[in-house]
Structures are given as structure tokens and as C-alpha cells.
């Protein structure tokens, strides 16, 4: 069983914001679906980790940031990239290793870096982004800026010493970092409870005096509300916060993982909590847009992503003579 809390009601946000968050979540969902298809057909080199199911944590957090703020992501990071504004065609091309990819096909899904939008990168190393984010916050402080940096990491990274070392430093130096754990209940094929001790995950931040909370990561409004608080707190110079978003990856650890280690009942229950169903319901219940308009938004997202696939797939490969470029700057 996951250490998930039941949804504690959910804050409500401005209708226009909710609509735009819903649209971004839809774009992420269907971007991932397109990647899944491409991977299943053999077009994606290596292993690819999809974030379908976790869109609310990606989008709700990043919606509370300004363009100038930073994020550091992890191996399940396409949603973070898109929420921070990455061009989806360049992202897709990177995941396929193409010359037109955001990193020229050098990095692939796990190391997409997008400095134009303050994205320090997805990261192939569990916990790798955490110190980078703390470092970016240190740099912001040094240049007298109030830019905020969010680091995303999975529940697996909770047990990397680096997280605790960085929380300590962020707390003593009051760095403008928001630590965001996307707790999807599993690290690879291992359930969180089998490897993670203690009665309280927020307790892991509280020991450093860091305001810490666990929230329903399937509710984009709740995620946004928690992020708003943490980002404002950091920007005001008070220091770090720690948010644990309980969520669920709908797919396997990577495309091709059959998830035999998961319990079917649990999977069904989480499926019913799909963050997209939730925000669609909130949008129509509040009369912000009609159900038809919501359905149209989804169609638009599907068409946008599906339309890219063939072009990206047939894109050119990086040229051999570029091999040794950028080893040194």
C-alpha cells in the first residue's frame, strides 16, 4: 500500500488558471501517449519513462512559477519540460535522438536541458537534480535575485543521502528551493514501504525546520495551492519548503514494464482518481466551460501531438562530424 492520504477536500483556484492547467495536462497526457506508441514501434532508443497519471503534480507546481524561475527534473520528466514551456516538437525529437531535438539528439529523454526556460534538465540519476536545484537557488541569492527553484524527484530519491544534505543546506542558508517529491508509490519495481522507514514523510523535512506537507497529487488545484504557498514563501526569502504529492504512474516504470508487481485493485482505484477527470469535472461543475469545449480541448491535444509523430520520426539524425562538439565549452 502507498502512504497516500485521501484527498482532503481540495482548494479551488481561479477559473482561467484551472482551464489553462487542464489544457497543459491534456497536452502532457497525449504527448506521452504519442511517445508510448513511438516507443512500442521501436522508434525510441533506450528506455523511456512516462509520466501519464502524474500530470497534476507537474502542472500544478509549475503553474505557481514565473517564467524566470528554475526547475530541475528527473527521469520521468517530459511533463515538467512541457509545463515549463518546452517546444513539444523539439522535445519529441530529442526523445527520438534526432538532430532537431532540444539537445541535438545527444541527451535523449533523461537529460533534456532547456536553459531558455529555466529548466536545468531531466536527470538520469536518482536524486541528481536535487543539488542542482539548490545550487541554482544559491546562484539566485548571490546575484541578488528572488528567483525560485523547484526540484522534482520521486519517492525513490527520498532515500538518497543527497536529499537530506541539500535540505539541511537549503534550510541553514534559507535558499529559495521547493523540494517536490512525486510519490507514485514505487521506485522501479519496489514499493515505497519496503524501502522507506518512518511514520511521516513530511517529517523528513520538518527535522530541518522546513515547512512540509503531504497533499493529493491527483488534484491539480490542491497541488497549485501548496505550490503557491511554497513559492511565495521562498520568494519572500524565508527559505525552502517540502511538498509530497501522492500520485500514481499509469504506465510501467518504463515503456514495456508490465507492472506485475502492482495490485490490480489499487491500480483500478487510482485510475478513478485520474487528475484529468478531476479537473474536467471541476471545470464543468463551476460552469467555466462546457463539457463539449472540454472534449474539444482534448481532441486538440490529441491532434497536436499525433500530428508531430511522423515528421519527428523521419527527421534527420545528428551528423557524424558533430560527435566531438561541446565536450568542452
Amino acid at each position: 500500500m502507498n502512504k497516500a492520504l485521501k484527498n482532503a477536500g481540495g482548494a479551488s483556484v481561479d477559473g482561467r488558471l484551472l482551464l489553462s492547467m487542464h489544457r497543459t495536462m491534456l497536452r502532457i497526457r497525449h504527448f506521452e501517449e504519442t511517445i508510448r506508441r513511438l516507443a512500442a514501434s521501436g522508434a525510441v532508443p533506450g528506455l523511456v519513462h512516462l509520466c501519464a497519471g502524474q500530470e497534476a503534480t507537474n502542472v500544478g507546481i509549475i503553474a505557481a512559477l514565473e517564467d524566470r524561475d528554475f526547475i530541475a527534473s528527473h527521469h520521468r520528466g517530459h511533463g515538467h519540460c512541457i509545463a515549463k514551456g518546452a517546444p513539444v516538437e523539439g522535445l519529441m525529437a530529442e526523445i527520438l535522438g534526432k538532430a532537431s531535438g532540444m539537445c541535438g539528439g545527444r541527451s535523449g529523454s533523461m537529460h533534456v536541458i532547456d536553459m531558455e526556460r529555466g529548466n536545468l534538465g531531466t536527470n538520469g540519476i536518482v536524486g541528481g537534480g536535487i543539488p542542482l536545484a539548490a545550487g541554482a537557488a544559491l546562484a539566485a541569492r548571490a546575484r541578488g535575485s528572488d528567483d525560485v527553484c523547484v526540484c522534482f524527484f520521486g519517492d525513490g530519491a527520498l532515500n538518497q543521502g543527497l536529499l537530506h544534505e541539500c535540505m539541511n543546506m537549503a534550510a541553514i542558508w534559507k535558499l529559495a528551493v521547493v523540494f517536490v517529491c512525486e510519490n507514485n508509490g514505487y521506485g522501479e519495481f519496489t514499493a515505497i514501504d519496503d524501502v522507506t522507514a518512518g511514520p511521516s514523510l513530511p517529517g523528513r523535512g520538518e527535522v530541518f525546520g522546513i515547512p512540509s506537507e503531504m497533499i493529493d497529487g491527483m488534484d491539480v488545484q490542491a497541488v497549485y495551492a501548496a505550490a503557491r504557498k511554497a513559492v511565495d514563501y521562498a520568494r519572500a526569502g524565508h527559505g525552502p519548503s517540502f511538498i509530497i504529492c501522492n500520485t500514481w504512474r499509469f504506465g510501467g516504470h518504463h515503456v514495456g514494464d508490465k507492472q506485475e508487481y502492482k495490485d490490480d485493485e489499487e491500480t483500478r482505484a487510482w485510475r478513478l482518481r485520474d487528475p484529468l477527470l478531476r479537473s474536467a469535472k471541476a471545470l464543468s461543475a463551476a460552469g467555466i466551460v462546457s463539457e463539449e469545449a472540454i472534449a474539444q480541448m482534448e481532441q486538440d491535444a490529441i491532434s497536436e501531438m499525433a500530428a508531430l509523430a511522423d515528421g519527428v520520426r523521419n527527421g534527420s539524425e545528428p551528423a557524424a562530424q558533430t560527435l566531438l562538439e561541446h565536450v568542452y565549452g
Partner: protein
Amino acid sequence: MPQMNLAEALIDGLIWSLRADPRATIIGRGIAGHGPEHAAEDRLKQEFGSRIIDPPTSEAAVAQLGTGAAMAGARPFVHYGTAVFAYEAWNQFINEAANIHYMSNGQLSAPVTFHLFHGIRGGGGPQHSGSPYAMYANNPGLEIVLPTSPRDAKGLMRSAMASNNPTIVIQNAQLLGLTEDVPAEDYSIPFGKAVVKRDGRDVSVIACSRSVIDALEAADILEKEGLSVEVVDIRTLAPLDVDTIVASVEKTGRMVAVDETYEICGVASELIASVVTRAFSALKTQPVRVGRPMTPVPFSPPLEAAVNPGTQKIVDACRRACKR
């Protein structure tokens, strides 16, 4: 004799080790990888489930926990999966485990085995394709084992688990499916004994890990051109069997050193240095080095292929060494 793939043979070697020594324990899962050979691990779980623990993602601590357990009398086998994850445990491998015996003036040893999958694996990109064994070899106190066949994997694993030193068993993940007849009974293969995998007259290809397989393929290709290639698999990088290497080069008079680690300060460089400083006069032509060029491993498949010191590069190197 049963047929085993390399993953099954590794597991078989481990099973014999656990049967032989009640102090042996396993930390980690996915020992046979997560690819098509993964089920080989099931036998180990069935027979020794109670001696296996699945650790959190805490590589640095796990390495040193294994070392501490070894110092206190256990014989842990610590599995890392992709070798680069053990970069987190750099200090623990190099500065703790490797130094214990020396620092204690021989009072203590740290008989821990670290197990890693290295190398270009297809789409691993810059952060998942590392081959750190040349860096490990630059530190005294570690034994480094690079199995390239199921038979060797079983016998070398057995020796690793019996060794009193911290030992790194590291193999290219793409070799896990190699299959051959493997003796069913318990046996070990000693460290420091290279093996001539193929006899030849014109040029010696000295290789390890994945490059041995590529070199054998290259030898087949060159045979059709009338070049007779000898292939030597060093099997263990530390200790290194320089005698067998030198004997081969003395026989053929030409040398190609090939390995997946970086060209600069890599294994191929060391192999050439060990021959040149011992048997310079045996060389009729300049030795040729084949390694990974000095760039992170790119994600793009064609760029990745360009950094891989594969069969074609070995073929070209042999032609150069033989002035063809």
C-alpha cells in the same frame, strides 16, 4: 553438460558460493539484469531468499555497509545494476574498501563483491553508458573481473566470492545472453590468468569484456583476407596476466589493444604500456590502440555507434598493425 546463458552462469556461480559459505549474503535485486535473461535470478531467490535483501536507492551507504559487513566477517555480494549508479559510491569503493587491508596493516580485509553492468547498451546516453573499470584499476586494492563467456562467468564469480579482497565483477550487459555448455558442478577460475580465445600468427588482439566478442568477429572477417588474428581475453584487469599477453605478442610480433574504456588512461593504453615496457623488441610494427574517443556517450544511435570500439574498428586496427 547443461547449456547456460551468461546470466544463468553468473547466478549458478553465486548459488555455489552461497552453498559453500554460510557467511555469503546478497544485497540487491535484478542481478541477471532486467532484459530477456532476468528470470535467471529466480533460482537464487528460491534457494536463498532469506539471504537476499533489497536495498533502497542509497548507493553510497550500501557500498560501505557491504564493506563494513565484510570487515566484520560477512561475505556480501552487492549488486548495482547499471555501473554508473556506483559512481555515487566512489569514495566507498576507492577510499574505504580498497584501502582497508593496507590501512589495518593486514589485520582486516574487506571480502565484498560489487557487481555492475557497464557499457554502451543502446540509448543509454551520457549518464547510463559508463565503463568505469579503468578508473577502478587506477587504484590498488581492488580486484577487477570482466567475464565474457558463461563458463568464465561462473568460475570467476566463484573466485570473486571466495576472494579476501574487495572485488568488482563488471560486465557488459549486452553479453548476458551469450550461451554455451557450462559444467554443472562447482568449479572456480583463478584470477590473473588470461586466456587465448583464438590462435593466430599475424597480430595479437588483446581485449577485455565486450571487445573480446567484437575481436573474435573481427578475426573471422580478417581470416577471409588471409590475416591470422590471435585474440587474448585478459579476463581480470586486476590482477593482470602480463605474461600471457607478452607471450602472444612475442609470437605474432604485432599488437592491437582494444577495450571500451576511454582511449586516454584507459585499459588499452595500459595493455600497450605493459607490452612496450617488457617486450619492445618483439614488436615488428607500432601497436594500435582502440578505445572510446574522449566524448560522453551520445544518445543518438548513429553517434553512439561512432563512439563504440566495435568490430569494424578492430578490423581496421589489425590492418594497420599489419600494414595492409
